[in-house]
């Protein structure tokens, strides 16, 4: 800033003319306008003086020895590319040709002799005005650039740095502008499943990234609280519809990878096909867009279903934005899906999809500038499971021996109860509600993760096997979970009667606490004695397919079925 004002106070002009007389006349006029004046008597000397003094104005003769005015101007303009130093030709050649050539050489104007001192001064003023405007634009641009860089740093701090498992999930992000319109989010659900989102906001630059922060917050908070993918998609769509103008929206692909279920749940809303590759690089599935982008419609279209696919632990799910397939080379050809598939397949085989694909795209485009943001997410379907250790279960010393049969009469710090019936049971997920109650009253604790797992298993058992009468045998085939999920969706959509009742009670203890859960459903019940035998058997044999009850056995202090199996009471206890 100081340098600028300093310069403004004593503006510098350079006069390049082989006539010393002319130089003197112009110097006098310029001094009257407040310039400090340097002179040069040939083009070459003019260029070196220009480089030395960086003047605010250059007056240039055309015909000179050593180097003429056109050539000197070309050289000056090539070294002053980033600043507008106005340059005016002063000549007595009153021809169209001289005029055209001087502008083409890079001159900003021409003044033909003879002229009066008044005309000369007016010309200098007008050219200086343009130069000042240029300077203002440049400094505004610089300010904007600095602001944008700061905003971008904060934005990526909020968004990317908080992603989950960046060591396992491969992410490519090449922004076309400073702000990327593409967004990549990963987060872990309380049960260990992984949620991933690849989004592409309309356009790029700052305008396209305003939706990114609320999107990231919603995605993370809902994932952490254990909402299902459908619930998260529904909420994100509504939020972006409310928040963004109608021409701004988000093409997005959503994925939940559940290693335990050997399943992937996918919704593609406005992105190019998502892929699932097998370990030897073969394409197992392609999931095409089946819904308009997020934020276009006030609600999701009716019958919007996730695609549920059975996956192996070494399969990989690839999400891409259109920047990859639409990347162009110098012949105007696009990278296209077939090139992407070959590249991705090779990447799967060598175990580094993101690097391989990015290299191939860059090589293909060669020197062409990147037009759109390029994004890819490579998600492994296995390697996520954190084994539940036997030590997770707290066993209290004998004196505190807990008898669940009398637990209902224990004094409690608080109780929470919710009965969901009919269509509400199909629409509402009570587990996040229950957990948020616990969180709000008791604050955050690492134990809530176990509690989440217990509540989810118990509730899903009651809903699926009790109310919906789904048989877990469905899950045993290779495509089992996908079939099971489909059937579940159908029955849920039809659900008109039935209920599940959930009660929690919280019992503080001196050195920890206990939560007792009662869940009742309207189903027909099941032969729990036989089931428990099987569990004991399964635990002994160390081969057990139904994780659900095994996990419950491992985490709960006690687990008791009543009635015909329609009531379950479980207690979870912890020490601090």
């Amino acid at each position, binding site marked *: 800033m100081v340098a600028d004002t300093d310069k403004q106070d004593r503006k510098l002009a350079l006069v390049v003319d082989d006539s010393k007389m002319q130089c003197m006349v112009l110097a006098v006029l310029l001094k009257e306008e407040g310039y400090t004046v340097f002179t040069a008597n040939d083009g070459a000397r003019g260029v070196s003086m220009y480089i030395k003094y960086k003047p605010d104005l250059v007056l240039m003769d055309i015909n000179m020895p050593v180097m003429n005015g056109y050539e000197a101007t070309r050289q000056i303009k090539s070294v002053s590319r980033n600043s507008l130093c106005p340059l005016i030709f002063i000549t007595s050649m009153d021809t169209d040709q001289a005029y055209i050539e001087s502008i083409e050489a890079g001159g900003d104007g021409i003044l033909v002799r003879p002229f009066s001192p008044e005309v000369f001064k007016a010309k200098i003023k007008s050219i200086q005005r343009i130069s000042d405007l240029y300077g203002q634009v440049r400094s505004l641009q610089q300010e904007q650039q600095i602001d944008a860089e700061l905003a971008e740093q904060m934005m990526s701090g909020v968004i990317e740095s908080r992603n989950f498992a960046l060591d396992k999930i491969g992410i490519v992000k090449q922004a076309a502008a400073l702000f990327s319109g593409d967004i990549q989010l990963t987060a872990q659900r309380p049960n260990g499943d992984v949620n991933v989102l690849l989004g592409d906001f*309309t356009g790029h630059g700052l305008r396209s990234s305003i939706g990114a922060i609320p999107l990231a917050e919603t995605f993370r908070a809902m994932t952490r609280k254990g909402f299902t993918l459908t619930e998260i998609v529904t909420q994100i769509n509504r939020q972006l519809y409310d928040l963004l103008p109608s*021409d701004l929206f988000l093409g997005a692909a959503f994925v939940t990878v559940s290693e335990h279920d050997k399943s992937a749940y996918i919704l593609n809303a*406005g992105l190019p096909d998502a892929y699932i590759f097998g370990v030897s690089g073969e394409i197992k599935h392609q999931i095409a*867009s089946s819904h*308009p*982008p997020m934020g*276009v419609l006030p609600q999701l279209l009716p019958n919007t279903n996730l695609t549920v696919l059975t996956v192996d632990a070494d399969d990989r799910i690839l999400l891409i934005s259109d920047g990859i397939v639409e990347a162009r080379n110098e012949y105007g050809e696009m990278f296209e899906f077939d090139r992407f598939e070959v590249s991705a397949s090779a990447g799967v085989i060598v175990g580094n999809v993101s690097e391989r694909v990015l290299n191939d795209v860059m090589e293909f485009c060669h020197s062409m500038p990147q037009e*759109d943001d390029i994004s890819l997410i490579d998600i492994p379907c296995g390697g996520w499971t954190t084994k539940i250790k036997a030590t997770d279960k707290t066993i209290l010393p004998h004196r505190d021996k807990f008898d669940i049969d009398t637990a209902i009469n224990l004094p409690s710090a608080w109780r929470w109860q919710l009965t969901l019936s009919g269509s509400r049971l199909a629409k509402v997920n009570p587990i996040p509600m229950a957990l948020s109650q616990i969180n709000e009253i008791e604050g955050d604790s690492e134990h809530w993760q176990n509690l989440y797992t217990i509540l989810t298993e118990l509730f899903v058992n009651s809903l699926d096997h009790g109310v919906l009468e789904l048989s877990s045998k469905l899950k045993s085939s290779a495509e089992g979970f996908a079939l099971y999920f489909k059937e579940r969706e159908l029955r849920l959509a039809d659900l008109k009667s039935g209920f599940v009742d959930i009660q929690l009670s919280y019992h503080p203890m001196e050195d920890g606490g206990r939560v007792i859960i009662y869940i009742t459903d309207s189903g027909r019940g099941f032969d729990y004695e036989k089931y428990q035998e099987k569990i004991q058997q399964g635990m002994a044999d160390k081969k057990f397919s139904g994780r659900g009850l095994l996990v419950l056995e491992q985490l709960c202090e006690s687990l008791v079925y009543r009635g015909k199996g329609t009531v379950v009471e479980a207690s979870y206890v912890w020490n601090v």
Partner: protein
Amino acid sequence: MPITTRELKDVNQLVISIEERFDFSVHQKFRDSYINVDTQNTQFVLDLALTTYMDSSALGMILLLKDHAENFTGSVVIKKPSETVNKILEIAQFHRLLTIEK
């Protein structure tokens, strides 16, 4: 001219044709082409027969046109998209939002 309009008064249609690139660079011209058409029940026909390229900001512009049309109880019909352009419309599932005639 990349954008031309024809008003077919007898059938209450405004035909907007877009040549070559349909992207943010024609934003203002595209808006100007329909913004003063406020006759009730107008059908806005978007003729994409000569459109060679379309990006996601064009999809946004179509949604703005749709808003405008619906303000005057009108509708939007997209006609004759090329294969490339149709692919973009398909990925965005725009046939769920308005009529596309191939």
